[in-house]
């Protein structure tokens, strides 16, 4: 299946808008979920660092790798 | 089955419970033979109510087990309930029903259907006039509702009584009455566990204390 040109690829037989918005939304949701999780983890580490002694942080980061 | 007197009827083995993430008590143990009464004391929030709810199976302990006549209450379940009478903080009295109906219903459900007639007797001994016994319970005072709740338990045939602050909201007369009923029950070979803040005398009864809230593990000291 070869596409004539890049424009044709994006036009997607005139239905490009539907195809790309579907793929776009999916990508948005998947990446969004990953980022939200990472942010949540970073915030947790910060609260832990303030509340707890330094040793607890090393313990968490050590079992990270 | 005649109760053998030396055989410990009611045993708790290193019970532990928590509220949310906070441990309330841990390794609480005691063994009660027939004719013994255990008083659970401790400051507010030390877990007295939680312990009593664990003892009657309303709540799962985090660790440890409770045995009635040598068997874990989780296995016994309905059989255990047949021998148990529990009065908690909440009276369990339906406001729309009259005291008579409340006690009669409880009596019928506890498979002691025969003495539904004794409901008026139970209520009157606890100081509720016949006229009061016919009013919808919601019009009664807190103390009177407490008596209705106690009337349900004090005159049944249950061998094990677990009361959570039975004397709360009761006047001096009622307290003496209830204390007397409990002492008679224990003297008659029953077992009782109760928590209370007032130091109420139980004549002729071997009383044991369990202090909760002490940082180290609490164990039942013989008086």
């Amino acid at each position, binding site marked *: 299946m070869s596409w004539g040109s890049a424009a044709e690829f994006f036009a997607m037989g005139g*239905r490009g808008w*539907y195809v790309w918005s579907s793929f776009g939304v999916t990508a948005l949701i998947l990446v969004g979920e990953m980022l939200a999780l990472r942010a949540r983890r970073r915030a947790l580490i910060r609260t832990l660092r303030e509340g707890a002694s330094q040793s607890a942080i090393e313990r968490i980061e050590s079992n990270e790798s | 089955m005649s109760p053998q007197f030396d055989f410990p009827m009611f045993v708790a083995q290193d019970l532990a419970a928590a509220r949310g993430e906070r441990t309330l008590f841990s390794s609480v143990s005691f063994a009660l033979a027939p004719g013994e009464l255990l008083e659970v004391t401790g400051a507010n929030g030390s877990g007295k109510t939680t312990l009593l709810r664990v003892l009657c199976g309303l709540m799962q302990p985090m660790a440890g087990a409770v045995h009635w006549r040598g068997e874990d209450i989780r296995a016994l379940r309905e059989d255990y309930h047949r021998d148990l009478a529990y009065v908690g903080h909440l009276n369990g009295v339906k406001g729309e029903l009259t005291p008579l109906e409340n006690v009669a219903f409880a009596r019928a459900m506890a498979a002691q259907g025969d003495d539904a007639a004794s409901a008026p007797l139970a209520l009157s001994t606890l100081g509720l006039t016949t006229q009061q016994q016919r009013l919808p319970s919601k019009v009664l005072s807190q103390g009177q509702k407490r008596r209705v709740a106690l009337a349900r338990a004090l005159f049944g045939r249950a061998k094990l009584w677990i009361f959570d602050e039975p004397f709360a909201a009761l006047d001096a007369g009622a307290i003496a009455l209830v204390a007397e009923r409990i002492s008679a029950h224990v003297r008659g070979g029953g077992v009782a566990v109760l928590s209370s803040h007032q130091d109420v005398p139980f004549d002729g009864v071997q009383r044991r204390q369990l202090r909760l809230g002490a940082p180290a593990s609490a164990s039942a000291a013989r008086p």
Partner: protein
Amino acid sequence: MIPWFAALAAVLILIGLYVSFFVAPTDATQGEVYRIIFIHVPAAWMSMLCFVLMAAYSALGLALNARLSYMMAAALAPTGALFTFICLWTGSFWGRPTWGTWWEWDARMTSELILLFLYIGYLALRGAIDDPRRADRASALLALVGVINVPIIYFSVKWWNTLHQGASVSITRAPSMAATMLLGMMIMALAFWMYTIAVVLARVRCEILERDAAARERFTGAQA
């Protein structure tokens, strides 16, 4: 371990996209727009799989009273809900050019919608309970009740659908399944699966940290 799954998911998604756009032929009737199927169907599979896994971990949790399996069930729920949403979104976007309607009351799509409600119910129940122990066990029970009802709902909707509209072409019974199309969907499904594992494990780790922090806060609070 999580980075491994995340990397694997990324690689598989790339391969899947390549297959779906460059290997799969143009469809005779629907032209190019049918390519949405390469995310619509895997998302539907994943939404089902997550719910079943959630119920399995819930059953495990209730049986063994194991905190970790409750957490796994809790971690699966948001991802499953998102996949259901993706499936619904892509389904309606595919329906618009092909059938002219944004929402087609087709048996599969309707039961997917109800599955979304079940997910939302699960998340709402878990959110409404503060005590972690009760939250775990109550939501586990709901997941079990839900998983028993999903097949019943699916068959009753299918029965209702054929009753009112006759056997209309079902949206996911796409045109003749060329081998490459099936391959594309399989790869994407695998990719989504790897992605789910990575996200779920990461969320469980967060959950552990959170409960750890809450306990420590109370502990340090008590000491200060």
